[in-house]
């Protein structure tokens, strides 16, 4: 079952250990107005362990969002996946740090990490530090990070089909966040999260 955490103001520290054959799924949701310092330390300690960590954040004001994830692959045959997507508007400041550490002899590891950000305003700032530290050779590891803006060609496409600029932006942002929310298994929870995100996105767009 996915562990859905609505991150509160302040510090959130989680140390997870995933044993042989076990699987951990976690979705972190950070709503506008929340300034937080999230520290996750995930350790895959038994063969066949799997960890999937997802996160979405939306900031529209003066929030300071700090996310730090350490993913330790201590033994062979473990998989991990991380996907963090966020939107930074207003005068918010987002700091993302994520490290995949593959220990010596942790062969056949598959570890992936992605962090994508959209900047909405000139006062907002995003720093991202995805890192790989790999001491075994038979592994598949990758990370990707982007910081960008809403695509204007997409907006033009929608507007030429009668969708207002405001609605076009909302659609773009919803579809940007969706890949994170999709991982919430429970349907009621997922729908609740989606509609909450949608109304927050509309709020932010209105305030630009």
């Amino acid at each position, binding site marked *: 079952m996915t562990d859905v955490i609505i991150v509160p103001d302040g510090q959130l520290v989680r140390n997870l250990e995933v044993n042989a054959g076990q699987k951990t799924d976690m979705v972190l949701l950070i709503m506008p107005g929340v300034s937080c310092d999230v520290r996750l330390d995930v350790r895959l300690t038994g063969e066949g362990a799997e960890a999937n960590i997802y996160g979405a954040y939306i900031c529209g004001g003066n929030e300071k969002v700090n996310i730090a994830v350490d993913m330790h692959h201590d033994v062979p045959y473990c998989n991990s996946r991380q996907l963090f997507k966020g939107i930074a508007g207003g005068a918010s400041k987002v700091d993302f740090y994520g490290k995949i550490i593959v220990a010596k002899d942790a062969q056949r590891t598959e570890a992936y990490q992605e962090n994508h950000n959209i900047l909405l305003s000139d006062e907002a700032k995003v720093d991202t530090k995805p890192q*790989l*530290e790999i001491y075994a050779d038979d592994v598949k590891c990758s990370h990707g990070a982007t910081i960008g803006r809403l695509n204007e060609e997409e907006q033009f496409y929608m507007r030429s089909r009668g969708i207002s600029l405001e609605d076009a932006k909302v659609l773009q942002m919803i579809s940007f966040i969706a890949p994170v929310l999709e991982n919430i298994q429970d349907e009621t929870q997922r729908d609740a999260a989606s509609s909450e995100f949608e109304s927050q996105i509309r709020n932010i767009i209105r305030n630009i």
Partner: protein
Amino acid sequence: MSKEILDNITDKEYEHGFVTDVEQEFIPKGLNEDIIRLISAKKDEPEWMLEFRLEAFRRWQKMPMPKWAHLDIPEIDFQDIIYYAAPKKAEDRPKEIDPELEKTFDKLGIPLHERAALAGVAVDAVFDSVSVTTTFRSALAEKGIIFCSFSEAVKEHPNLIRKYLASVVPVGDNFYSALNSAVFSDGSFVYIPKGVRCPMELSSYFRINAAGTGQFERTLIVADEGSYVSYMEGCTAPMRDENQLHAAVVEIIVEKDAEVKYSTVQNWYPGDAEGKGGIFNFVTKRGICKGSGSHLSWTQVETGSAITWKYPSTILKGDNSSSEFYSVAVTNNFQQADTGTKMIHIGRNTKSRIVSKGISAGRSQNSYRGLVKMLPGAENARNFSQCDSLLIGDKCGAHTFPYIENANKTAVVEHEATTSKISEDQLFYCNQRGIGPEEAVGLIVNGYAREVLSKLPMEFAVEAQKLLQVSLEGSVG
């Protein structure tokens, strides 16, 4: 199976490990203000240059050695280094080059005679602490191009040196740049005047020969408005059990619409298979795209050195300026490398591209470390970075540490990194088609690094491909 194959591409020794038997002049070991005054006096420098050195030394004394890199650096005793060593005939040049020195550079494939030179390459040859000769100077001077040793430039073009020295890498920028500013010995100075396209490749070749010494090269390249130059740098050193320090500073100024292409093939002695000896290569290289539309491109092939600490960087200040960084870093045995780049976007519509390919084998550690920073004024700036690592063997490490900072909503930054190994499947595929095991590994590695190698000037590309193969010898599967 792949273990044997990798074992088998083995045991060719470091080719450039010989020592030249030439009478040399040394100054005493150690570092203090008197030594700096002595170096300055040896080079017959003006007062302002000495002041610059002393100021740098005073700042260096207050600085700690940087520890943030993913490197295990043994304690360096800076008092146990000879900061100046020169072949004795120095005072006779440029009329006559010691035949021994000429032989040395010949052996290294660097022709010091213009008639014998590779067509279209002018060379500045630096042996320990002094520049031995600079070829094609008069031909270049006809076009107004200045290409000479740094020491000569201090005397002959003091205005240019005073204007540009330390304008990109300030004296107190970091520990090693401060040390270099205090004790630097020689290097190259290049000035390309307005609108001139340099007709030949310029090249500097650095050779460490004397034991117990350090080499502190200082290079300054200025490309004035609308000019173009391609500059190449190569380096080798003898095989010794001691570690020798090479701490260089390279500064590049690119004015409006000018273009500089800077290529390095770094082949310092990497130490033996047990990790004994080798060069510590702690280098600060930085360029500034000062004017609008300027362009700076870095290409590096890093195969040597026991420890590499090097981040060729670009400050993109002019609007519409652009920069590229292409790198192949190979580490084997006990080598360590922490290398990458910094792209600082200040101007509007600035673009940068980073392609880094790391290859680690043996028990080596190979890290990419890079910064991409979009400042608030960098409207529509764009960056793309790709950092791939290839692991050969299960005792080495490959690491990626990018830092991405964006403070402009119209700026777009993309970064991706992958880590993988040469798979049995790939080897099998090649074998099946009649390609021998050694060739197959060479083929795969060269293919992997191709995007970078193709950016090298022709003279370097051939050498670099061979180097890649040699460097991976003895890599344990």
